[in-house]
């Protein structure tokens, strides 16, 4: 890692982590949504650092853009002031924290012990010239079948959401 890369890495990962922390600990759910955008921007930065440029754009448009807007939009329809009495944390929050830290420690041990072959590091893009092209080739040849499955997931979610939220049907 060059020093430049290291600095960028530090900045974007800080953004991602701080954003995530803000999401979890913000009192106001609207603020949480904004923190989520923040976090996702950091995540997009990490993706860019890993030279996954298509995914960077995807992350920014789909997540930081579309999904957050969707969540915020639905939140708008629910008036939290009227809901009232919505304290932030559950009574057993301490257990949640402890267990999450435990999992974090587990995963850290895993990361530190993990050995992967890095001889090909960073060469995944050279295959087809550009990241997007490589991705497209892979998506529509090797992974055509899962891609079709994704289509079904989206369709199911679409139908489901419509069915669940449309008002009348008697």
């Amino acid at each position, binding site marked *: 890692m060059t020093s430049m890369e290291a600095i960028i890495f530090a900045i974007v990962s800080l953004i991602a982590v701080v954003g995530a922390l803000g999401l979890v600990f913000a009192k106001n759910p609207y603020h949480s949504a904004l923190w989520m955008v923040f976090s996702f921007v950091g995540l997009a930065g990490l993706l860019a650092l890993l030279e996954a440029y298509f995914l960077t754009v995807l992350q920014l448009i789909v997540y930081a853009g579309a999904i957050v807007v969707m969540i915020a939009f639905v939140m708008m329809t629910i008036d939290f002031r009227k809901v009232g009495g919505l304290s932030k944390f*559950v009574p057993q929050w301490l257990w949640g924290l402890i267990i999450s830290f435990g999992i974090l420690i*587990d995963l850290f*041990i895993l990361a530190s012990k993990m050995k992967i072959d890095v001889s090909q590091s960073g060469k995944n893009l050279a295959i087809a010239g550009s990241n997007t092209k490589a991705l497209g080739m892979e998506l529509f040849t090797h992974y055509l079948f899962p891609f079709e499955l994704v289509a079904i997931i989206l369709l199911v979610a679409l139908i489901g959401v419509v069915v669940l939220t449309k008002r009348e049907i008697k």
Partner: protein
Amino acid sequence: MEWLLLLCVLSPAVGCIINGLFGRWTYRAAGVIGSTFLGISFALAVPLIIYAIQGHVVDYSYYHWIVSGKFTVPFGLRLDSLSAMMLGVVTFVSFMIHIYAIGYMGGHKGYARFFTYLNLFVFAMLLLCMGNNYLTMFIGWEGVGFCSYILIGYYYEKKTAADAGRKAFVTTRIGDIGFIVGVLFIILYFGSVKFTDVFAQAHMISPAIITIITLALFLGAIGKSAQFPLYVWLPDAMEGPTPVSALIHAATMVTAGVYMVARSAPLYALSPTGSLVVASVGAFTALFAATMALTHFDLKRILAYSTISQIGYMMIGVGVGAYWTGMFHLMTHAFFKALLFLSAGAVMHAMHGVLDMRLMGGLRHKMPQVCIVMIIASLAIAGIPPLSGFFSKDVILSEALMLGHPIIWLVGVVTAFMTAFYMFRMIFFTFFGESRVPEGMHPHEAPSVMLVPLWVLAVGSIVIGGILGVKVHGHISIEHFISLTSPNAFPIVHKYSETLLIIISIIAGVLGIAVAWLAYIPKGAFSFRSFVVRTFHPLYRCFFNLWWVDEIYNFLFCRPFWHVSERFLWKAVDVKVIDAGVDDVGRVAGLTGRAVRILQTGFINNYACWVSAGALIICGWYLLKIM
């Protein structure tokens, strides 16, 4: 012949289905229908038994139930001398009990339901006895357990009855675990569950495995046959209607364990340890239950403890390796115990449900016929010649001694003495002496539909032992008959004088009756006798002043036993340890369930905590290993 056998076994099932499905319309006729189908079953059993006596064996698999590779489980029946005997006992005694129940249950609600269950019970028992493999036997085994549950809890409005049914179910279920494990082992090591295959290969399997199998199977027998320490359900089982008690205690259910051990004789014969455990548990149970029967005042409870004790005898028989003796006693016992229970039921019927002997007395005037048959049965169980109990009990004791178990023999003799004592204590208390019947109760003789089965069983109790037990030089003696299928495994080590042994066991029985007589009868007749004695013969008075004997008896005999049996054995061991033990199994399961249930808080965060805690622990465990 094999189809006749199938028909014979299925007949009660047909009755059950008819009564079960059309019970609403057969209301009055339900009893007759139920009895008819059992009658058919018995009628079909007769030629089958004769066929088996002639030495034929029917072993037929009607249908292959489970087939996987080389391993198959057929649905098949086996008729040989051993199962033929069970067939005869079960169908005949059940038939009698059914007829009796027509009268006994008359007017009860759920009449048809009762006969449905009763038929089902007999069907399950027949399946258990006649199956030609362990899994068919297991179906019957489970079926019997379930039927006992619903029949004991028949008066489900009564809490005690519902509890008793549950207790019977849970307790026998504990034993069933052993049976299942045993069968799984048999499958594993023998690759077949058919009796013929298993027994043919038995000598090729290592003795340790055989011992494990026999012990596991015997755990099942302990549960079903109410041996120590899983006997606790049986005394409570009298909460059911009397015909059910009779059925459970005499013909079905409790004999299943004995039959199973006898059926597995080739396995037990290879395992001296397993056999010794069977015999020891049997002997201990026999003595233990007899001491408990000494002090109770509840008619059916005394009989229940006596059943446990007698089953202990049978276990001695099959445990020492003389399998035929156990089966012989099973057979005679079925007759006189059914008779005892049905007569007790008649008394109860007449007394409007009262079973406390202290509220009886002098009933011989009110119900002479019941009195007579009950005395016959008691003589039989006490082992007085020439009644049937004498023959079967005597052979068990003498075989036990001859096969080298003197201690067990001694225990048996003591138990025989006690048996005679408590049975006649019961008789004297109930039928003799002054009437202590409460005001307004008018005991009456039982109706003839109940009396006929009683007399039939009484005749059976008298003659059956003699017919089968006397060793003729021909081939029809019971020993020869049953030994066709169950080998006498252990060599006879000592030869004692058989005559001496017979005399000893007769003395034990007579002595028991005599002590009972001394202890109970004169007290009731005291005023009349003392008047006569005081007036005419002062010496006579001294001689017959049995106040003293009664006191001595009370002091020397009754008190200690009362202390031992009531205080210690019954109260401390039975109620506290064993009863609580069995209850505790249920309670622990329940409490654990309740404790674990608290985990299910309904809060989604807690659920998520469980998921992630699970992940944390499992991953952490593996990561610790590479740290």
